[in-house]
């Protein structure tokens, strides 16, 4: 469904993505893991053109695009097929929960208002927040805001949703409600590309795992074999530090 080839990105002298390849099939839930600064966010942002990549190609639904040369028109068109969930939610502060969800439908996709409200209410219901439809973001908890952000993402019926560490700005007791919503989406066959530090999610919800370091993919594969039989020494070391942290924390 989606394929990225040899994507490259530098900030000044700093090479952040050194030619990354990635394939996502329909219904895949791909977890991207890796230490801080390895370029995970940058990869996601480049894929949705929030950053302009210096090189590489994108194949989306069989159509080919050159990252550095893509036109504004194609960017807007492709963005309508995708959705993005940010680490710090980025709900529109001047809109209610429902308006946050319907904005992309009414303005972006020219859907009639009544139909958009109905779609929006269904999306809010799915994340368990229909009763807060008229609340502004400032009146919602972090976990609730992120669930509205997920409702905003699913309402447009995207072909893929990008998640950038959707739970890492949340208190531990709030991550559960967000992860539960994401698990439901995965079960329903939504295609998702998820940057995460939640090993439970990567292991049990995603079907593919990509491990990145220093702007390169070190290892990728089926999530079971990735966790049970990591091939690369770097992957083993990374998983070990994580389990070490877990034992310390527990």
């Amino acid at each position: 469904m989606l394929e990225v080839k040899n994507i490259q990105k530098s900030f000044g002298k700093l090479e952040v993505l050194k030619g990354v390849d990635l394939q996502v099939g329909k219904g895949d839930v791909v977890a991207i893991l890796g230490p801080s600064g390895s370029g995970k966010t940058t990869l996601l942002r480049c894929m949705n053109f929030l950053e302009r990549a210096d090189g590489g190609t994108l194949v989306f639904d069989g159509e080919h695009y050159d990252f550095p040369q893509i036109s504004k028109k194609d960017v807007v068109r492709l963005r309508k097929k995708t959705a993005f969930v940010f680490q710090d939610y980025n709900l529109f502060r001047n809109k209610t929960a429902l308006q946050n969800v319907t904005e992309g439908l009414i303005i972006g996709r020219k859907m009639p208002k009544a139909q958009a409200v109905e779609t929006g209410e269904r999306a809010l219901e799915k994340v368990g927040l229909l009763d807060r439809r008229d609340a502004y973001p400032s009146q919602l908890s972090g976990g609730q805001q992120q669930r509205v952000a997920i409702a905003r993402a699913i309402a447009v019926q995207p072909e893929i949703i990008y998640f950038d560490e959707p739970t890492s700005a949340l208190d531990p007791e709030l991550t559960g409600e967000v992860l539960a919503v994401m698990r439901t989406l995965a079960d329903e066959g939504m295609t998702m590309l998820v940057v995460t530090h939640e090993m439970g999610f990567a292991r049990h919800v995603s079907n593919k795992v990509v491990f990145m370091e220093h702007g390169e993919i070190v290892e990728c594969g089926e999530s079971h074999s990735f966790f049970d039989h990591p091939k690369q020494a770097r992957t083993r070391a990374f998983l070990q530090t994580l389990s070490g942290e877990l034992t310390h924390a527990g």
Partner: protein
Amino acid sequence: MERLWDLCVASFWQILIPGPTMTIPLTILSFAIAMVLAVAAALVQFARLPVLRQIARFYIWVIRGTPLLVQLFVVFFGLPHAGILINAFPAAVIVFSVNQGAYCAETVRAALESVPAGQLEAAECAGLTWGQSIRRIVLPQALRTAFPPLSNSLIGLVKDTSLASNITVVEMFLAAQRIAARTAEPLALYIEVGVIYLIFCTVLTKLQRVGEKRLRVYG
């Protein structure tokens, strides 16, 4: 003392009437045009549009760097020598709107930049174009931030319209000036006109409070 009081009472309406007929229309018209100029000049900078952005910077530089009174004189007394004749009232509107526009442009630009980048990014990711994102998400938030300083500018403008007396616009100050000359009571009359400006500005301050309260709905 009683004579002065009677004089003030007698002249009150004569000074006040140019308020609704001159000072207020001049203020409202100028400020409305100024807002259009300000938002345009702020947006071309925010969007980093190559040539337009330079033009906006130049406009702001020139207007903020020269006295308002000089600008009034250039347009009303100077331009006729270049064959461009503009009546006093339209000349005042042009100068006040262009002048306020430059100051307010900086206010609006700062407010646009204070909106977190994630708001624009989220709007674009939701499938809105850049223009739609600005109009529906970024600009409304920016204008809320800019509301108190813009109210400040509006209050400043009310008082600045008194400068239009210098180019023969019969607004409140010129009305007071004429009575002062006729009665030879400058102290009483200039204090009186000052009090009238104070009343106008007090009303605006109250309106600002109401406006701020209404804009606070989304916390």
